[in-house]
């Protein structure tokens, strides 16, 4: 029997090593974690982790340059798929970043800037980027939340957030100024705005849950 393989999509954008190390840390014996930029590996993988950092336009350019778009869309139709940070944002139709960037369009919705002059509940100034540990309210039960308390804190770093056109996509909600959608899921795809690979125990738990998830 072939060993199960998780592909971590490498398109030159971000902390792939951290993501791969965290997955290796929680992976069951015999599971291979492959950091890859080859569409064939995505086709052969059992699961896909799609991380990302940086700017939306650069991400889309790099995905195009490496001819990964079709392989990603195909994988997202057929196997467990986890988007992280920018890997969540580019699943949407369009981002406001870089003067407007068309994204993969897997889900209808926009990626929006938090806005300048953001204020908290007591009128305090909120910094951009939204950086640090914030709570995530679970909008509905899901296998990736298994064993994770509602409201648990995860580590965030971002200036843009997704605004799905279909409210039932929302899987997690976080308050920063107005509440925003910090996790989404549909069918075999889940995606999170925070960094589970940098979120200590809770993050490792979520990654482990993803590896066990059989939608």
């Amino acid at each position: 029997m072939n060993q199960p393989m998780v592909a971590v999509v490498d398109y030159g954008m971000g902390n792939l090593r951290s993501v791969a190390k965290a997955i290796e840390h929680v992976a069951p014996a015999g599971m291979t974690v492959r950091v890859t930029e080859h569409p064939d590996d995505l086709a052969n993988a059992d699961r896909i982790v799609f991380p990302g950092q940086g700017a939306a336009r650069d991400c889309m350019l790099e995905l195009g340059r490496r001819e990964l778009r079709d392989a990603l869309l195909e994988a997202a139709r057929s196997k467990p798929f986890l988007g992280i940070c920018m890997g969540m944002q580019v699943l949407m139709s369009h981002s406001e970043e870089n003067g407007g960037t068309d994204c993969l369009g897997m889900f209808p919705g926009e990626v929006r800037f938090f806005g300048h002059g953001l204020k908290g509940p007591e009128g305090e100034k909120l910094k951009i980027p939204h950086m640090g540990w914030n709570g995530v309210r679970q909008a509905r039960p899901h296998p990736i939340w298994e064993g994770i308390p509602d409201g648990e804190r995860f580590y965030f770093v971002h200036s843009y957030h997704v605004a799905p056109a279909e409210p039932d996509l929302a899987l997690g909600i976080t308050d920063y100024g107005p509440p925003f959608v910090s996790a989404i899921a549909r069918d075999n795809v889940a995606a999170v705005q925070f960094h589970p690979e940098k979120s200590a125990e809770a993050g490792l738990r979520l990654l482990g849950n993803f590896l066990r998830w059989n939608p």
Partner: protein
Amino acid sequence: MLAKRIIPCLDVAEGRVVKGVQFLGLRDAGDPVEIARRYDAEGADEITFLDISASHEGRETMLHVVEQVAEQVFIPLTVGGGIRTVEDVRRLLNAGADKVSINTAAVTHPDFVREASDKVGSQCIVVAIDAKRVSAEGEPPRWAIFTHGGRKPTGLDAIEWARTMVDYGAGELLVTSMDRDGTRAGFDLELMARISDAVEVPVIASGGVGNLDHLTDGVLKGKADAVLAASIFHFGEYTVHQAKEHMAKAGIEVRL
């Protein structure tokens, strides 16, 4: 609500932690990996390594340290010290650092900050601001930027410089009062608040922490988004967890 962060800072030279970290039951007081694991277990929100190696070999060793820590510690890691080129930045990020802290090179080559943030994203770029009060007693306060551990004046106004660095792409500022660093007399709260008010990005307060009230002051009066401290954690005086409980009692949102 977003938590205020506590960040222990470790000075590393030639791959070894210096300034004698003292923990009960630590096998090797100089091992950055073991100390980082300890801080993670205590609930540190991030860890910062300051590489003070004098040699090229020391810097190479730092890359291995980062690799080893990143394999075992799953919270954000920042590395500062001697970072001068985009290649330095890339190598540290590829080794497993999440952010790099740029200090002297930001002053001597501000365009480097722009170039680095363009290449890797401003979320990875922390600019370290080392400031000293230069106003005389009774004058409105002014601070200037110093390099080389506070020895070399640049003439740059600290508040203006903070704004400039954010324009150049800094995603976060690490503000150290060179007057307070090592004194254990507390942060220069006026400096911290002035810079935090002046910029949109998060500010980490550093320099002078001697007790837990200094940390709460840094947030409540200094308007810092995160507080960095070294010696109060190293010598087992306080654990990071105790510091967080203290901040929580003062009404500060923390990750406990």
